[in-house]
């Protein structure tokens, strides 16, 4: 590695101050997606599409009961079915030590995985010990089920998917059904049935957390007004495009895996940990990914390694490749981390909108998320108190799902909206009055920016100003419940805000090879999650190297020894882009040394392309190396590399560099304040007779620091708007309250937002350069889908004059809220 190219150390406050005045690619519009033709033309291969010669198909039994124990299994009829090649039962000796690392754990090890690859650096980084993690897990195929649909009992490999499915139906199982509890509040009551009797001594209490900053009681005493309210958020899911699958093939002592997985290297590590197969004997292929939104990266989920172990054992036993697939219903099992959450709020504030204290009492189903973080990260509110309780229930497991901050954003927006409503104040003003960090005000934040070399810009003020203009706020915002339109519908408009939390963390590495024809390969594996990472990272390398974009390529499907963060294109670009940027800068330096240094081979000295110059005399543009003082004096990059490599009989490796980046374990270390703000406005019309809500417009204003690919950022904005609209309007996995069986685990009855569900989206990018990422960037992919739901919820309240306090805000709940408003005389 060259010594004079600075690679950022693990230092939270270090940031990239190299911001070129002019870019050829970065920030420019009109750059076609490099994977676009493959994807649109149907030639992009996904794991679901992988089909190997002789491949068997595997189905795993999904428990029909939400809480049950297997008493007996009879697989004789399945064994007799022609085409069945192998059956793996939960009582198979080979499965007894095959632990599912983390599923249904009683510990929230979320912060473990947030480190990405860094997780594997050492045990000391674990929030819980491996032993504790295992204790709460179970096995990859077990003899009990804690939720309906749990993968349990039996797995069958057969000549076709249809035969495997039929064989599963022929398995006769004697189940012992047990009582079910779904509501976390009910689960914590004395005498509640144990939701997971095999775990935690049958107790449903999983975690209790108390966090306090300042003195909440004193803050309430200092307040002019106090309000209290409750909100519930019911379970919802990713409903991701490509159902989960894998393909595994044993070759001798080696195992090959094709994985549909958000953090595939994590899956490989988990597979190795469970099976004892060394990592260098597992070869990982990562085809294109039919979206995950975080759900796919959960090391707690069966699909991240549980079914890899099953496929591996079946492949070894049959000597054939095995593909294990979930169907749509089976895929409908991961819940968002704020499912099912019940939250009580108490808020104190001054008459001028300054909030003096917030208290949050939060009860959630297992693997929940508490809601205090964003008040810590994002406001001047000095007094905060959280009481968080997490209960085991018979809901399916929960995990991050665009994203882990759902409940934080939800609580944050709820508090600001209710304060504004209670005061009759413009909510944008309440936001501006309370903006800050860690209980400190904007004056402190302004000094922080100056002290650390950031531009001193008021991100929230800029965001709000642009948003208000776009949605015509001054003319449209009105007293709640007071604007009936000529079409007989109630008009509403809402606003909410937040910061971008996922602006820098994790670890990534990549290599770069420049071939002797002058083309460049980025060497790193990653899952294709996020938006447009292939093009964006190629743009960075081309920009920094001075290459034509067409001369840079990144095929990230195979193992190269390097792993980049996933998802990418937005949030994790803050880490990955440093890698691309730094290795390209190093490669350029090496290239110019090649251009000026003769190659001596035994007795022959081959002259370089520019024998009379030093590296600093040269530069690169459009894949040509040229003399800065005489740009006409130029040669193709290919010629420079060719001279340096082929003159040595082609045995020397082509130009190669690599870079590594690790930065910010959680992205929010103390003293490393988030500076970029995000704002969202929504406009709705509500039918007072049916409770139906029409989303007329969503305006997203995102301070991205620096937009490397504007179309990619906009993709996050409107894509997030649609996901958010679905979440607030109707997304809920509905469980039968008596049996715990999912009633809408399909895309017909589980409603996601589609083309007609938003009339118009408007996407505005603000570039303050105040991100910690290279070029001053932050990501926004997490933010949009997570924060916008409450912008719509606020617009509904503005329309009907009453809060819908049970989300999603389906028409029946909107009607109930309208009835309440009528009883209060709002209209």
């Amino acid at each position, binding site marked *: 590695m060259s010594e004079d190219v600075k690679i950022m150390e693990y230092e939270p406050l270090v940031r990239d101050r190299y911001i070129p005045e002019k870019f050829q690619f970065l920030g420019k519009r009109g750059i076609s997606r490099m994977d676009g033709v493959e994807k*649109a033309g149907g030639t992009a291969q996904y794991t679901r599409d992988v089909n190997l010669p002789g491949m068997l198909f595997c189905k795993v039994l999904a428990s029909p009961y939400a809480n049950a124990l297997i008493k007996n299994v009879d697989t004789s009829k399945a064994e007799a079915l022609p085409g069945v090649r192998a059956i793996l039962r939960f009582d198979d000796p080979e499965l007894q030590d095959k632990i599912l690392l983390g599923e249904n754990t009683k510990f929230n090890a979320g912060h473990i995985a947030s480190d990405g690859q860094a997780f594997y650096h050492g045990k000391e980084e674990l929030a819980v010990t491996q032993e504790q993690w295992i204790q709460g897990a179970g096995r990859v195929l077990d003899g009990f089920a804690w939720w309906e649909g749990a993968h349990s009992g039996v797995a069958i490999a057969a000549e076709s998917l249809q035969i495997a499915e039929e064989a599963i139906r022929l398995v006769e199982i004697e189940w012992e059904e047990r009582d079910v509890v779904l509501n976390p509040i009910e689960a914590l009551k004395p005498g509640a049935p144990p939701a997971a009797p095999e775990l935690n001594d049958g107790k449903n209490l999983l975690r209790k957390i108390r966090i306090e900053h300042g003195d909440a009681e004193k803050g309430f005493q200092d307040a002019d007004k106090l309000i209290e309210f409750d909100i519930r958020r019911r379970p919802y899911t990713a409903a991701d*495009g490509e159902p989960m699958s894998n393909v595994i093939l044993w070759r001798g002592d080696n195992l090959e895996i094709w994985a549909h997985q958000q953090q595939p290297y994590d899956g490989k590590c988990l597979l190795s940990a469970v099976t004892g197969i060394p990592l260098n004997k597992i070869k990982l292929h990562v085809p294109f990914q039919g979206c995950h939104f975080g759900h796919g990266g959960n090391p707690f989920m069966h699909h991240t390694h549980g079914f890899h172990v099953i496929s591996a054992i079946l492949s070894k036993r049959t000597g054939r490749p095995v593909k294990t697939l979930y169907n749509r219903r089976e895929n409908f099992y991961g819940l968002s981390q704020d499912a099912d959450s019940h939250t009580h709020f108490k808020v104190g504030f001054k008459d001028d909108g300054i909030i003096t204290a917030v208290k949050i009492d939060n009860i959630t189903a297992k693997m929940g998320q508490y809601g205090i973080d964003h008040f810590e990260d994002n406001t001047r509110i000095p007094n905060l108190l959280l009481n968080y309780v997490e209960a085991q229930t018979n809901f399916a497991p929960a995990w991050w799902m665009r994203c882990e901050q759902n409940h934080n954003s939800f609580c944050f927006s709820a508090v600001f909206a209710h304060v504004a409503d209670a005061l009759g104040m413009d909510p944008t003003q309440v936001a501006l009055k309370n903006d800050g960090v860690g209980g400190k005000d904007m004056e402190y934040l302004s000094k922080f920016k100056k002290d650390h070399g950031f531009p001193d810009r008021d991100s929230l003020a800029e965001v709000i100003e642009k948003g208000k203009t776009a949605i015509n706020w001054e003319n449209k915002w009105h007293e709640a419940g007071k604007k009936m339109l000529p079409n007989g519908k109630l008009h509403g408009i809402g606003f909410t805000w937040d910061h971008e939390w996922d602006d820098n963390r994790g670890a990534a590495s990549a290599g770069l090879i420049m071939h002797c024809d002058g083309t460049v390969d980025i060497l790193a594996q990653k899952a294709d999650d996020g938006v447009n990472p292939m093009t964006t990272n190629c743009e960075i390398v081309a920009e920094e190297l001075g290459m034509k974009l067409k001369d840079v390529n990144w095929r990230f499907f195979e193992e190269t020894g390097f792993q980049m963060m996933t998802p990418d294109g937005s949030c994790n670009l803050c880490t990955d882009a440093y890698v691309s940027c730094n290795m390209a800068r190093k490669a350029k330096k090496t290239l110019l040394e090649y251009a000026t240094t003769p190659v001596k081979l035994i007795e022959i000295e081959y002259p370089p392309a520019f024998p009379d110059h030093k590296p600093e005399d040269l530069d690169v543009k459009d894949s040509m190396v040229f003399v800065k003082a005489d740009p006409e004096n130029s040669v193709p990059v290919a010629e420079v590399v060719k001279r340096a490599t082929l003159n040595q009989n082609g045995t020397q490796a082509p130009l190669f560099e690599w870079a590594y980046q690790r930065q910010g374990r959680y992205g929010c270390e103390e003293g490393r304040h988030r500076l970029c703000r995000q704002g969202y406005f929504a406009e709705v019309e509500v039918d007072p007779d049916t409770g139906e809500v029409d989303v007329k417009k969503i305006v997203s204003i995102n301070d991205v620091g620096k937009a490397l690919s504007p179309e990619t950022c906009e993709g996050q904005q409107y894509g*997030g708007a649609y996901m958010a609209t679905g979440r607030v309007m109707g997304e809920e996995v509905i469980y039968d309250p008596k049996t715990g069986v999912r009633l809408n685990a399909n895309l017909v009855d589980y409603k996601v937002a589609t*083309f007609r569900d938003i009339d118009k989206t408007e996407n505005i990018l603000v570039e303050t350069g105040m991100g910690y990422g290279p070029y001053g960037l932050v990501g926004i992919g997490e933010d949009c889908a997570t924060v916008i739901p409450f912008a719509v919820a606020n617009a509904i309240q503005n329309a009907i004059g009453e809060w819908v306090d049970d989300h999603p805000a389906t028409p029946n709940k909107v009607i109930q809220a309208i009835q309440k408003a009528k009883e209060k005389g709002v209209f």
Partner: protein
Amino acid sequence: MANVEEQGGAKLVTLQINGDGHHLVVEPQETLREVLQDRIGLTGVKEMCDRGACGSCTVIMDGRPVLSCMMLAIECGGHPIETIEQLNSQEHPLIQAYADNHAMQCGYCTPGFVVTAKALLDKNPDPSEEDIKTALEGNICRCGTYPAHIGAVQDAARKLKG
């Protein structure tokens, strides 16, 4: 052949796919998607919902966009079928327009949108924004790329008109 039918109702059909005849013995319960994807290897036809809700498996049959997961293959003999692979081999302008307009993210659902849009352009070479929404409103993109599709389809329409 008779023997095959006696053993479970399987039937020999000739599917006209992308201009080629495919002679296949298909089971009565096999959907067109299963046959196209699993047996013929046309993996551009995607399985997402598998019950007619998402449009990812759309093909053009007799000039109309149909959901191949809702069609029994055994009934499709003799009907010309066009898949995304045909559009790709012909370098249909929609494909480059989708790439240029970033009308995709993960891309899993994208071939279904492109095929549906192709069926629209075959009948309506100059679609309005409303026409495009009407044509594509049955397709699900979980990444939420909907607004970008309008520009992509209109760009392709302009290229097709020359």
